[in-house]
């Protein structure tokens, strides 16, 4: 009896596949793109604030720089920040979730309380405060997003761990003398991957929204290109009404990034639990 592998089932999920393709394109553009396109800086050669044309596919900004190049470099920033935020969240959230789910001490209740508080209080004003104080940079933003994202991840890891800990193969591992660490970080981790991956895609998606919001408010790293930052420049200088492309293209990039990651997450989630929707 051969079960369908995950990939086989996932490939049937239309929305999930769209998400996967979209994410792959974005990753390709953001990682490989900057090698083909020069970093826009200084003053551009083209006329400032011109609309999309043959030379400048997406138009130019107030400094005459090519918007298309800015978008590509912005993709790299978005990927960098959201991936870093995910790593921060994973670094804190997964061990805490595993330990509290497996050892079942008081830590579990503590994690729940922290998660609830993080979900109740408005986090954006706090992130704004922190970013403003420390000074905006890629590192700050990534860490701040990750720090607010780990409680939810920890909770998911903990709940999955609680379920998996009951399985007989975990008991077998204990009886065989497998060390606790291996049980948690190998046996359990391998079996909770599903929900964890889903949450990771969600973090990737919301990280970009948060990062774009922070950049839009003027708290982005001034040394890199970011989609939110492009918007901020346009709004601040009042170009937004005249040069619609300076608003539409970066904003559309943001939304597409978020939508694709969300679709990917939904696809994975529904492939793992077919009962959750239909």
């Amino acid at each position, binding site marked *: 009896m051969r079960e369908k592998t995950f990939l086989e089932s996932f490939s049937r999920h239309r*929305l999930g596949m769209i998400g996967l393709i979209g994410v792959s394109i974005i990753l390709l553009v953001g990682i490989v793109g900057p090698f083909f396109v020069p970093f826009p800086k200084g003053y551009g050669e083209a006329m400032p604030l011109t609309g999309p044309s043959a030379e400048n596919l997406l138009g130019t900004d107030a400094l005459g720089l090519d918007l298309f190049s800015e978008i590509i470099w912005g993709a790299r920033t978005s990927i960098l920040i959201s991936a870093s935020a995910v790593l921060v969240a994973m670094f804190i959230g997964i061990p805490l979730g595993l330990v509290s789910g497996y050892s079942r001490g008081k830590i579990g209740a503590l994690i729940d309380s922290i998660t609830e*508080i993080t*979900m*109740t*209080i*408005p*986090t*954006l*004003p*706090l992130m*704004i*405060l*922190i970013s*403003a*104080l*420390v000074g905006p940079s890629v590192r700050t933003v990534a860490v701040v997003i990750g720090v607010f994202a780990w409680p939810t991840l920890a909770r998911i890891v903990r709940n999955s761990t609680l379920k998996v800990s009951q399985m007989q193969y975990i008991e077998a591992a204990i009886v065989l003398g497998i060390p606790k660490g291996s049980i948690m970080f190998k046996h359990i981790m391998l079996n909770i991957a599903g929900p964890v991956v889903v949450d990771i895609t969600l973090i990737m*998606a919301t990280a970009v*929204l948060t990062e*774009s*919001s922070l950049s*839009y*408010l*003027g*708290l982005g790293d001034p040394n890199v290109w970011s989609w939110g930052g492009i*918007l901020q420049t346009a*709004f601040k200088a009042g170009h*937004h*009404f005249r040069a*619609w492309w300076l*608003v*539409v293209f970066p*904003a*559309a990039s*943001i*939304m597409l990034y*978020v*939508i694709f990651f*969300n*679709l990917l997450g*939904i696809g994975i989630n529904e492939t793992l639990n077919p009962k959750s*929707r*239909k």
Partner: protein
Amino acid sequence: MGRYIVLRLAKGLLTFFVAVTITFLIVRLMPGDPTTALISDSLSPDDALVLKESFGLDKPLYQQYFLFLRNLLKGDLGYSFFYKDSVSSIIGNKLWWTLLLMGSSLFITILIGIPLGVISAKQQGKLLDQIINVAVVIGVSIFVPLLAFLLLYFFSFKLMLTPIGGAYTPGIDPSQMFGSVISHMILPCATLVITYLASTVLYMRNGMLDVLKEDYIRTAKAKGVSDRKVTWSHALRNALIPTVTVTGLMIGKMVAGAVLTETVFSWPGVGTMIYDAVQKQDFPLLQGAFIVLAASVIVMNLITDLIVAWLDPRIKL
């Protein structure tokens, strides 16, 4: 009164306490001298010294903490660098505008969201549900400034139907104030409603699905109550509870949306204030903004939880 109210109040106070403590620690422990964060360098050295003492920046940390809490209870949130006025009075003026915007948006979102969620749950699997599902995915991916801008661009700039910004037309006759505010509020409100409708519908739908599965629905149907009546009376009552709970969740999230929306429409609330404060590096204002917003959200959550408790026969108030 009841045990639940007391517990819930305690929980709210604890949450506020945690939020405030985090703020305290962030400012004091961040790299750099906290003085620069709390006291403007444009003040005269004497004034600066007075402020420094009132914050207790020369004292050990735990003493600073008590000073901080004491000031908080007095309503003292520090002094704005830029406005040269107390943070509390500045925010006080602007808070009402933000609450007005958020409150109205929340109200409309619930008004539209609940029925849509119910329909989506009932029509599970069918075309309408699928359409709503796709819409929800797009909805949760909305980048607020973009939506705000698009609405502003089309309705105010191109079509000139609504005002460009602000909360009301300045110098207007007081009798027409209400209408003016409404017309200024339409677009920002619409932005928030569209943004948060998706999550509301999603949670309402899931809440309804859980409820519809329960046995008593089957029993009611077996008794011969008409299908429609079953849906709306039995299920609705109990599904309202998760929705109201979710509303509480979203109040916190809506703050983020409100901050972003206000900046696009120049709505004179806390959001625009934050934006300006960031530009001017007015840290006390930013700190005060967070504390005030956190407090507002906690209070609103408290109210919604109490409403839930009142509706739910299982919880003894």
